[in-house]
């Protein structure tokens, strides 16, 4: 079997070409030790393509560059497919001169020939092929042109014999660029067109001093509404309605003859666990449709550009604003969005602080406690919690930047690509990738933890029981002393917080079961206003729910997930204890 490495600059249509060539025949994973996605696909049984990350050069600074360089140096690739933007050969060919050093046959795919033609560029592909010592094939992936030729070329494989004498040994970037400029002066004819391009016209509006922020927030608002009010959340609600009101009654009548532990395992354990996973799916799919749209249209880079100054204060680049905002809806897609950031440090740092953004699931807990303990001041109390989360995110951002990520600082230089209309096929592909990845990787963990918690709360060592005498209750009494300095130590509260691992709104559901009766009146006997506030602070900050932990593990590995859980537990305990002391003084 032959292996081909697919390599090219960012924004040249590499992923789109990869999807076209391999279809559904692909495997997504991570490169060892870094948060860079590794994609492999098959054109046929004899030809595997490895999609290397989009990079400008191989100078081994970023993890993307390291991955690409190590892969090419390993000799695993029999040939290289180098995709370049035909409308901007000058910069794209720099990478080509670097990969020539690996003495591996290269197919140079000139993509976006249609855009080059629209710009008035005429490219002499034969001359390029001869001078560079590569096989050149012009295509236009978005128009579907040249793809068949490329496929049949790959299948025939006769490019492998192309002369590979001309391997460049440039001493520095200037030599390489000077060579490219000379080559292009003969190989490319340009009909002069100094008119203002479409991109420049759009940027005049989108980056305008006064319009830039209103436009940005309008875009975010649209995506948020689309996800959380118009499509995603309603669909999720509909799904959970299907599970709770249709599937569960049907199953319970079906299982009415079987023993109670078995029907509880099926209904509360397994169906409950599956439900916990699938209700996230519509939200993830709709949100990523929106994010992919921003990304593919070229707007995302502009958003990063205008938000950079503010985000820099917490050690992040402008683009990190989006995952953090998404985190207010739900941390799961927030962490998944963090994967779109340019540098490894940004990705990790952002993912670590996303859970501090107070998500939707925490709101019901705040709402109930605030209305019981702080009547008339609900808004202030809830708002203070949101602000506390944001403030701590800033502090921890600065702290992590100066400590664990100190060595990973990378220069912030991003390309502002030309605007283009996103292709529906690409949007769908990208969106489905995210959904599938979540179901496969995170889903299994969420499901298993759901079943374990079901077991712990329904059994003790002598068999099935209710939650008040379950194993979970024993665990609750065991850990509850930890909460004494926080003012709300009782096994009931401890158990509620443990079940809150499932999703933070579950905290209320569990309290309802354990305390019995009307929750609003029963919590009044178990909390003081000060301990209630401390409890809310704890709910805001403690370990993210299992879906977030599973997503963190999927995207960033076990160590990051473990660190995220630990630091948040410590943070929650410390801040909550401080909040309790202060609240006692005030109230």
């Amino acid at each position, binding site marked *: 079997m032959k292996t081909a490495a697919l390599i090219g600059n960012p924004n040249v249509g590499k992923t789109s070409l990869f999807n076209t060539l391999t279809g559904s025949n692909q495997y997504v994973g991570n490169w060892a030790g870094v948060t860079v996605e590794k994609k492999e696909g098959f054109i046929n049984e004899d030809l595997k393509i490895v999609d290397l990350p989009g990079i400008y050069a191989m100078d081994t600074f970023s993890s993307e560059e390291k991955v690409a360089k190590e892969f090419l140096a390993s000799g695993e690739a029999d040939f290289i497919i180098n995709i370049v933007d035909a409308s901007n050969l000058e910069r794209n060919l720099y990478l080509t001169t670097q990969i020539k050093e690996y003495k591996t046959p290269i197919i140079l795919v000139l993509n976006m020939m249609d855009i080059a033609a629209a710009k008035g560029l005429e490219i002499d592909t034969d001359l390029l092929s001869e001078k560079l010592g590569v096989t050149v094939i012009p295509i236009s992936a978005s128009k579907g042109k040249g793809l068949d030729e490329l496929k049949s070329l790959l299948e025939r494989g006769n490019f492998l014999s192309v002369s590979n004498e001309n391997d460049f040994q440039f001493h520095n*970037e200037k030599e390489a660029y000077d060579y490219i400029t000379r080559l292009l002066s003969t190989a490319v004819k340009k009909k002069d067109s100094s008119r203002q391009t479409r991109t420049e016209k759009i940027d005049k509006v989108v980056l305008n001093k*006064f319009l830039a922020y209103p436009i940005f927030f309008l875009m975010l608002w649209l995506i948020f509404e689309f996800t959380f009010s118009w499509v995603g959340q309603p669909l999720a609600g509909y799904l959970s309605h299907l599970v709770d009101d249709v599937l569960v009654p049907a199953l319970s009548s079906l299982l009415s003859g079987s023993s109670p532990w078995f029907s509880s395992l099926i209904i509360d354990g397994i169906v409950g666990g599956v439900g916990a996973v699938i209700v996230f799916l519509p939200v993830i799919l709709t949100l990523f449709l929106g994010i992919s749209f921003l990304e593919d249209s070229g707007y995302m880079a502009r958003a990063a550009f*205008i938000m950079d100054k503010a985000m820099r204060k917490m050690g992040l680049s402008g683009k990190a604003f989006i995952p953090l905002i998404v985190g207010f809806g739900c941390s799961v897609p927030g962490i998944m969005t963090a994967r779109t950031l340019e540098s490894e440090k940004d990705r990790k740092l952002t993912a670590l602080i996303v859970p501090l953004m107070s998500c939707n699931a925490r709101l019901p807990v705040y709402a109930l406690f605030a209305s019981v303990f702080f009547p008339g001041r609900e808004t202030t109390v809830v708002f203070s919690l949101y602000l506390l989360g944001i403030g701590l995110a800033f502090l921890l951002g600065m702290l992590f930047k100066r400590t664990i990520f100190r060595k990973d600082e990378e220069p912030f230089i991003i390309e502002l690509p030309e605007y283009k209309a996103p292709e529906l096929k690409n949007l769908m592909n990208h969106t489905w990738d995210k959904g599938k990845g979540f179901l496969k990787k995170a889903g299994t963990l969420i499901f298993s933890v759901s079943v374990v918690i079901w077991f712990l709360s329904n059994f003790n060592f002598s068999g099935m029981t209710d939650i008040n005498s379950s194993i979970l209750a024993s665990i609750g009494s065991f850990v509850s002393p930890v909460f004494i300095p926080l003012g709300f130590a009782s096994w009931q509260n401890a158990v509620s917080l443990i079940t809150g691992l499932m999703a933070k709104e579950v905290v209320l559901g569990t309290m309802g079961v354990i305390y019995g009766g009307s929750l609003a009146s029963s919590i009044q006997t178990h909390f003081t206003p000060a301990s209630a506030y401390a409890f809310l602070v704890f709910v805001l900050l403690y370990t993210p729910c299992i879906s977030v932990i599973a997503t963190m593990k999927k995207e960033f590995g076990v160590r990051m997930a473990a660190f995220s859980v630990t630091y948040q537990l410590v943070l929650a305990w410390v801040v909550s204890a401080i909040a309790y002391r202060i609240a006692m003084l005030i109230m």
Partner: protein
Amino acid sequence: MSITDLKLGEKAYIHSINGDNKLMKRLMALGCTEGTEICLKNCAPFGDPLVINLRGCDFCIRKKDAKNISIKDNL
């Protein structure tokens, strides 16, 4: 003189790149080499970062990094 001394829309030739190694390497890989034409195209609403145009591409770069691109003779 550095690129940050230009007015929006002005062009100049690059004289040299200074600053730390990572930044220098990154800029040069993008074609920011001596004698290349560079244009200060735009700046963010609060004046930082900047958009520079280099060999037909727009890049966003922070002011403190852009200060390391020194230029000669305005165009």
